[in-house]
């Protein structure tokens, strides 16, 4: 009997081409998007957009969003949402600002302490979702408001009535950890390259681009690590399983609760990393920090191939999704196109991505 079925199976085997295989990768859509957007701006934007300084210009916001988007993507693959990421950026910014300015803590203490508080809030989010069985959508929506409001109130308390906390730059200027979270990396290399006339330089001989903004390095490193974890570790398999079918996963011995709570902690920590980077960069923090970033992060994750139903997606896709975002926001300023088209573009991109993902999912599961 087995032989019969083998023979039948064999003759029905169609060789799977490279293209079909590629089609099944979740990040394909985002990669195609990057190519399309690049071509679009090659024709419409001024040449400066794709010079080294132009690239750094759009990669910096892409990196800040991308760190959030990769966290959001991993959580979405795990089957949950976090709408509080944007507010978490503001809240962590406040905590961090208060630690370094109001309490005068050095970064070695202030940064771990800020992460610890954020992680606790992430765990709280996750615990409420898992304990009550309510959709994470609604629970984290509540935290979107709670944290935003708490940031406002906290700022007023910390500053005595203002909604902006200044003086961060002065407080961290001489800290040995500051270069890890702000400024540019590889400045020596860039200066050398400028000297060799291999990159653009000012008439003074200084390079036009002093180095790679550190957030871009964080962004790339995080994307690589997240991809590795998802595709090459048991924990990655657990994330896909938890999002694919919670019941099946836990019946097979996957610690679903632990996986999901860790992912909520991860998104909160991503928000905190972005908060620390941007607060040091700006030298101050305010209550509008991270406003609407939760939506942008989720959109970038969806453009990157994440299904809203969970269990499918990729970190590298979110990476490309965030780059598309950065290119379009900044790219429009290099064109004669009215920048207010941005939101129209955003919505259209989201719709296209969702339709495309839906189509891909049907192919992967063979329409069953």
């Amino acid at each position, binding site marked *: *009997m*087995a*032989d*019969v*079925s*083998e023979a039948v*199976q*064999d003759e029905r*085997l169609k060789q*799977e081409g490279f293209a079909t295989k590629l089609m*099944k990768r979740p990040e394909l859509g985002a990669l195609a998007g990057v190519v399309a957007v690049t071509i679009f701006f090659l024709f419409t934007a001024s040449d400066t957009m794709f010079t080294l300084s132009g690239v750094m210009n759009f990669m910096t916001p892409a990196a800040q969003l991308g760190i959030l988007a990769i966290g959001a993507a991993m959580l979405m693959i795990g089957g949950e949402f976090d709408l509080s990421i944007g507010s978490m950026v503001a809240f962590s910014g406040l905590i961090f600002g208060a630690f370094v300015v109001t309490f005068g803590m050095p970064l070695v203490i202030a940064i771990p302490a800020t992460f610890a508080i954020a992680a606790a809030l992430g765990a709280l989010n996750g615990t409420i979702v898992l304990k009550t069985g309510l959709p994470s959508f609604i629970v984290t929506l509540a935290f979107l408001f709670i944290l935003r409001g708490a940031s406002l109130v906290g700022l007023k308390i910390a500053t005595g009535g203002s909604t902006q906390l200044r003086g961060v730059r002065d407080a961290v200027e001489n800290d040995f950890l500051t270069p890890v979270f702000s400024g540019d990396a590889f400045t020596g290399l860039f200066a050398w390259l400028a000297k060799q006339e291999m990159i653009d330089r000012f008439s003074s001989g200084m390079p036009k681009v002093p180095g790679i903004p550190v957030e871009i390095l964080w962004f790339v490193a995080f994307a690589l690590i997240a991809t*590795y974890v998802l595709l*090459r*570790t*048991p924990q*990655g*398999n*657990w994330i*896909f*399983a938890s999002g*694919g*079918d919670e*019941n*099946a*996963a*836990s*019946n*097979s*011995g*996957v610690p679903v609760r632990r996986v999901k709570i860790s992912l909520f902690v991860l998104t909160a920590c991503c928000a905190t990393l972005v908060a620390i980077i941007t607060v040091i960069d700006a030298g101050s923090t305010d209550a509008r920090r991270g406003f609407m970033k939760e939506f942008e992060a989720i959109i970038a994750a969806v453009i990157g191939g994440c*299904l809203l139903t969970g*269990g*499918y997606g990729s970190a590298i896709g979110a990476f490309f999704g965030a780059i598309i975002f950065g290119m379009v926001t900044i790219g429009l300023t290099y064109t004669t196109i009215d920048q207010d088209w941005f939101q129209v573009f955003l919505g259209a991109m989201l719709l296209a991505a969702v339709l495309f993902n839906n189509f891909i*999912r049907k192919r*992967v*599961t*063979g329409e*069953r």
Partner: protein
Amino acid sequence: MAGDTTFHHGAPKTDAQPIVQMRDIEKHFGNIIALAGVSFDVLAGECHCLLGDNGAGKSTFIKTMSGVHKPTKGEIFLNGKPMDFSSPRDAMEAGIATVFQDLAMIPLMSVTRNFFMGREPTKGKWLFKRMDIDKANAATMEAMREMGIKLRSPDQAVGTLSGGERQTVAIARAVYFGAKVLILDEPTSALGVRQTSNVLATIDRVRKQGVGVVFITHNVRHAMAVGDRFTVLNRGKTLGTARRGDITGNELQDLMAGGQEMAALEGSLGGTV
């Protein structure tokens, strides 16, 4: 169909100690009494069929055996020792593997990732501890080949497999991880003729390896094709266990439906059920 195809390999050893023994199991969900005192045991290398109509309590019963539900009352013995499972993981570690009615498979994930879900093989140390993908792929292909299914590729999504193939993946997975008792909850209910006989052949193959199989079905023909012993559940109760040869298919059918009603029905349908 399988009425004329039997996969039987002779009489089971009767003097053996059961691997799992369940005594007077009761399970209440609030005021619903799903099980009202069911006793059951499984020997090594036998196929013990659990029959019953929809809602008889079959799934509930095996869920108490596999650690999903805690019985409200009753005792479970594993190799003669009392056991108290608090999670499916406990039962799995004790060698009781279950292929649930819903299969516990994730359609969007590849066969390999499903196969090793929750028990991924790893290589490397500490920070570099990672999934041994090559080993996992090879083991999956091999296990599936042994079950008579040739996979296109280990990356193939489970969603693209047929019902019988999925069922076989689930069974192969349980056997691979060293199940001593394999519980199959209605593995044939959604399958066509050939797929069904494939699954029945798989049950026979697994049994020959010395695994005790609990085969749940409401199809008497499927049960008669592979079963060594038969227990019928009816409205949360059992009327005892019959050995192969001591009972006919028709008698089992009657027991499942609660006797008289079925006899009456059968009369009016001219014995076609």
